[in-house]
């Protein structure tokens, strides 16, 4: 290609041609077809043209070409040559400057840049123009150039001294664009640390301080999100960038703390925290008194602004920590003495208005210097407790704060340093409070925090008190965390002095006391020392105790223990829980006991790994006979929560046959329920192989035969199988649902068929369905809608009821999509006066729509209000009445012009409900009626 003048003239015609030709040029320069100096020479006609526009374009194509060149292509001389050219151009018309900025940006990222070039550029730039007189985008580029220069040539730039710093301050001063401000705040802290600020420190500080506190509300349309918090955080970085700034920081903090704006206060306090983190104690010490005075004004002003309070506490903590971390040991004491001097008198009076605020400050002091502060505070507490006038309320408060002080000391690992005779005296004083019933629990809670330094005699007193608490009959207390803390430090002692005694005497206590003991001890199972005595006691009471109530209590406790335990399978291994249950279950006849057995086996199985589950089922399942009630419960426990990968193919047919037998033949409703849950879970879990499928089809066919004979139980069984298949996403499910839908017209089985839809839709808490198909609820809704739509349109009662159950289980978004279709059906459901369930279901669904001010319901409000008002006097169920009232209340959320026409009708219609016989209904009516009164009356 020939680079003739014509070529360049064409190239400069439009912005697009400049862009396209710069790519060609950079490629050719790279290939050695044309040198950079030749290139500059060639476009000389443009660069020296009398037309500003030409000069701009000439500079643009040069900059664009440079940008596209490889970083290492140009040598020192070439870079220097172009640099000089650009510096010269800075004197040109201001329209040329943007292109020069682009060029400089490209040049300073080159590998070979002679070190005098940046200086040359800077001096020329500052001489001829300023950053702040450029447009926003160019300012951003210039700031980036400044950042790049200061990072790459910091040593050279330092030789420029104050002039350079002065020019930088001028460049950033007065920046208004948030994105640029954000950039400045990001790079300036590094700048302030690298370059000596000399006499310009205050100017530099002022250029940041004028933004404080940040007042910025980002617009929602802004793509790059800068938040106020980000800016505030970065501004604080700048304000603490140099140790010299502290003097002015203090002035700024003091000034802004006087503001009424929460933001100003919080930002000042956060700045103080940052200062304390950044600066040395010798810088801060001269100002401490002044700063504490300010903090005191915030902390002890009785304000309830929690944001200011927490920032102030944090600032104080950082300030005190700054002293603690300094080499001067006495400094922390001197700070603490000042702070404690203010708050100790307040802490001396528990009824003082500022007591809570002062105690927060006290805790901050302890966090900063645990040994010194806690000694002072605790000894002042001791004096108060010694006084005669100390009331119970004050004692409880003191105990609560002491407890927190001990906890902080223990976290900071300085409990040892407060292990002094004074502390022991205080403990002794606390122990006296143990005798007082109102403070005793607080004493235990307090001392549990400092157990390592409580001496043995005191501990013994605590043990005997805990025994008393655990074994008395008159109060419900939870001391499990206290026991846990003791168990951590003194397991042996706790066992011999407390737990063993309690467990030994267990038989003599009443049931309620035993329940309390089990409750409190259950979490100890995770500490090795207590595992054995606890489990043995429970298992003894489960299997050897003749009283059914005792057994149930122990079973519940075992359940609690297992749910808290970290290693259930290990417990089962050590204590053979499942095995002993299976061995002893035949003796059990009580249903509640069996149910608990079931739950416990379930818990154990659930916590086992896949291999352990396979082992357990392989070991126990063959010996279980499903025709016996007790074995049925145990099988449910064993299989009810299995992982979906544990194969059941081997036992599947036998299990299903036996369970069907129970379901169809048994009269024991409890056993049938268990059988149903298990069938549902098994059908859902079993692998979709052809053998299993054909077996399921076979039994479904059998059940249908039974249904033809008019067996209601068969309908129920079929619904459970349908549920299992449906959740799994099996294709046979739709056919079964259709069969059930047909039964809704049956003369004798229609009621059972309605309940079948309840079974299919309801989520049972104890039912484990391992295989869940995505969106199965939506699928059910569509299947049912398709199958029974004709009947729904004709408003057949049984179909409406069945539909009510399905709709309740369907996700709201699905209903919303179909509201035009199902709306009339829902309204019709509200007319079914004899079915409480249907009424409640449809009210609930309508309510969900009303809450979000649905458009469809907005059009039918008059009708809905009429129907709901009728239901507010529905005699059969108070819940229907309450639901109806709540729905009417939420109708007021629609815009005023929509609901105002209904106001009089509703207010009159609700008068009757004000005299309802149930109080809850009356309460709902009062709330609803008063809300309606306010419509249109508040401006």
């Amino acid at each position, binding site marked *: 290609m020939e680079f003739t003048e014509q070529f360049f003239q064409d190239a400069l015609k439009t912005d697009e041609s400049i862009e396209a030709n710069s790519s060609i040029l950079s490629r050719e320069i790279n290939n050695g077809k044309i040198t950079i100096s030749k290139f500059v020479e060639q476009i000389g006609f443009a660069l020296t043209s009398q037309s500003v526009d030409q000069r701009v374009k000439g500079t643009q194509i040069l900059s664009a070409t440079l940008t596209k060149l490889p970083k290492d292509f140009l040598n020192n001389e070439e870079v220097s040559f172009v640099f000089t050219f650009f510096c010269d151009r800075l004197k040109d018309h201001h329209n040329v400057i943007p292109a020069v900025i682009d060029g400089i940006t490209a040049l300073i990222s080159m590998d070979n840049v002679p070190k005098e070039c940046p200086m040359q550029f800077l001096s020329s730039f500052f001489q001829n123009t300023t950053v702040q007189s450029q447009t926003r985008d160019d300012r951003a580029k210039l700031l980036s150039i400044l950042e790049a220069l200061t990072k790459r040539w910091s040593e050279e730039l330092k030789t420029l001294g104050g002039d350079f710093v002065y020019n930088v301050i001028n460049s950033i001063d007065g920046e208004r664009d948030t994105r640029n401000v954000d950039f400045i705040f990001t790079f300036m802290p590094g700048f302030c640390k690298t370059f000596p600020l000399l006499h310009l420190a205050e100017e530099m500080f002022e250029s940041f301080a004028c933004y404080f506190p940040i007042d910025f509300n980002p617009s929602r349309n802004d793509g790059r999100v800068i938040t106020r918090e980000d800016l505030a955080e970065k501004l604080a970085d700048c304000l603490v960038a140099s140790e010299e700034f502290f003097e002015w920081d203090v002035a700024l903090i003091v000034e802004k703390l006087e503001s009424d704006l929460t933001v100003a206060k919080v930002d000042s306090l956060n700045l103080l925290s940052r200062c304390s983190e950044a600066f040395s104690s010798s810088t801060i010490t001269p100002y401490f008194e002044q700063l504490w005075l300010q903090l005191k004004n915030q902390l002890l002003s009785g304000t309830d602004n929690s944001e200011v309070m927490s920032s102030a506490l944090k600032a104080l903590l950082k300030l005190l920590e700054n002293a603690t971390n300094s080499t001067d040991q006495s400094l922390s004491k001197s700070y603490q003495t000042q702070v404690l001097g203010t708050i100790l008198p307040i802490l001396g009076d528990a009824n003082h208005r500022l007591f809570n605020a002062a105690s927060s400050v006290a805790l901050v002091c302890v966090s900063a210097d645990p040994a010194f502060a806690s000694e002072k505070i605790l000894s002042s507490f001791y004096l108060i407790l010694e006084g005669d006038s100390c009331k119970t309320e004050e004692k409880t408060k003191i105990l609560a704060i002491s407890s927190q002080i001990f906890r902080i000391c223990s976290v900071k690992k300085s409990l040892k340093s407060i292990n002094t005779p004074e502390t022991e005296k205080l403990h002794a004083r606390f122990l006296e409070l143990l005798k007082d019933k109102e403070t005793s629990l607080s004493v235990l809670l307090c001392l549990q925090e400092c157990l390592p330094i409580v001496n043995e005699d005191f501990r013994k007193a605590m043990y005997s008190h805990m025994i008393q608490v655990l074994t008395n009959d008159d109060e419900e207390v939870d001391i499990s965390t206290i026991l846990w803390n003791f168990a951590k430090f003194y397991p042996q002692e706790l066992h011999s002095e407390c737990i063993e005694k309690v467990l030994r005497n267990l038989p003599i206590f009443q049931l309620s006391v035993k329940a309390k003991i089990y409750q409190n001890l259950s979490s100890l199972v995770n500490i090795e020392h207590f595992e054995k005595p606890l489990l043995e006691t429970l298992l003894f009471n489960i299997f050897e105790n003749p009283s059914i109530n005792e057994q149930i209590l122990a079973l519940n406790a075992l359940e609690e223990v297992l749910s808290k335990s970290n290693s259930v399978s290990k417990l089962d291994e050590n204590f053979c829980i499942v095995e002993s249950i299976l061995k002893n279950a035949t003796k059990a006849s009580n249903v509640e006991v069996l149910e608990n057995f079931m739950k416990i086996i379930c818990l154990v199985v659930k916590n086992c790994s896949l291999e352990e589950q396979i082992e357990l089922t392989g070991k126990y399942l063959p010996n279980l006979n499903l025709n016996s009630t007790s074995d049925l419960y145990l099988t449910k426990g064993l299989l009810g929560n299995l992982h979906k990968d544990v194969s059941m193919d081997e036992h599947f047919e036998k299990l299903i046959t036996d369970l069907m037998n129970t379901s169809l033949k048994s009269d024991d409703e409890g056993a049938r329920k268990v059988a149903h849950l298990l069938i549902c879970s098994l059908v859902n879990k079993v692998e979709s192989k052809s053998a299993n499928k054909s077996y399921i089809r076979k039994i479904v066919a059998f059940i249908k035969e039974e249904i033809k004979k008019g067996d209601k139980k068969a309908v129920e069984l079929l619904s459970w199988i349908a549920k299992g298949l449906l959740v799994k996403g099996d294709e046979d499910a739709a056919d079964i649902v259709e069969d059930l839908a047909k039964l809704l017209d049956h003369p004798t089985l229609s009621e059972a068929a309605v309940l079948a839809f309840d079974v299919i839709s309801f989520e049972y808490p104890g039912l484990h369905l391992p295989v869940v198909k995505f969106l199965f609820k939506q699928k059910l809704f569509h299947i049912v809608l398709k199958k029974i739509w004709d009947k729904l349109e004709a408003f057949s009662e049984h179909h409406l009821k069945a539909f009510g159950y399905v709709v309740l289980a369907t996700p709201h978004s699905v209903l919303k999509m179909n509201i035009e279709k199902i709306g009339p059906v829902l309204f019709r459901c509200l007319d079914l006066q004899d079915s409480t369930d249907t009424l409640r279901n449809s009210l609930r669904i309508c309510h969900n729509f009303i809450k979000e001010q649905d458009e469809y319901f907005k059009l039918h409000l008059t009708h809905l209000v009429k129907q709901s008002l009728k239901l507010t006097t529905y005699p*059969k169920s108070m819940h229907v009445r309450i639901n109806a009232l709540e729905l009417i209340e939420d109708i007021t959320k629609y815009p005023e012009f929509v609901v105002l026409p209904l106001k009089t009708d509703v207010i009159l219609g609700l*008068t009757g409900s004000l005299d309802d*016989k149930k109080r809850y209904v009356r309460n709902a009516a009062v709330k609803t009626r008063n809300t309606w*009164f306010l419509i249109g*009356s508040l401006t």
Partner: protein
Amino acid sequence: MEVENINPSVYSKAKQRAHTAADDDENLTDPFDTREIFDLIKNINDPEHPLTLEQLHVVQESLIKLDNDQNEVFINFTPTIPHCSMATLIGLSIRVKLLRSLPPRFKVTVEITPGTHASEAAVNKQLADKERVAAALENQNLAEVINQCIRVL
């Protein structure tokens, strides 16, 4: 408007009414009791402070008398200071709230606790006058102030 009682004593709120088995029994009738009436008026906002009448002890459960069979409710309320110019407004708010919340069979009487307000008799007379209460509610501005007081926030 100048606040008359700048620093009133603030008391703690009563606990929520305990739930009993009888509450859930469909067949039992829960009769009205003083606690229920108290719950209706305790949350009325004080016109001067962001506090409820319960917190200021303007209304107390012990000052409510109720005869469910004779359909009578009698309420005493206690202004925080004897010269409180808001006494009528507070009384009116209580009346209106009960008018809206109680079945119409009840005859409601609202009076100032004897000996707690300088112009007790005058206020009581105003509150007892049905015509004047109705007229007060016709007044747009007054009705709005009352609605502000009795709206539950």
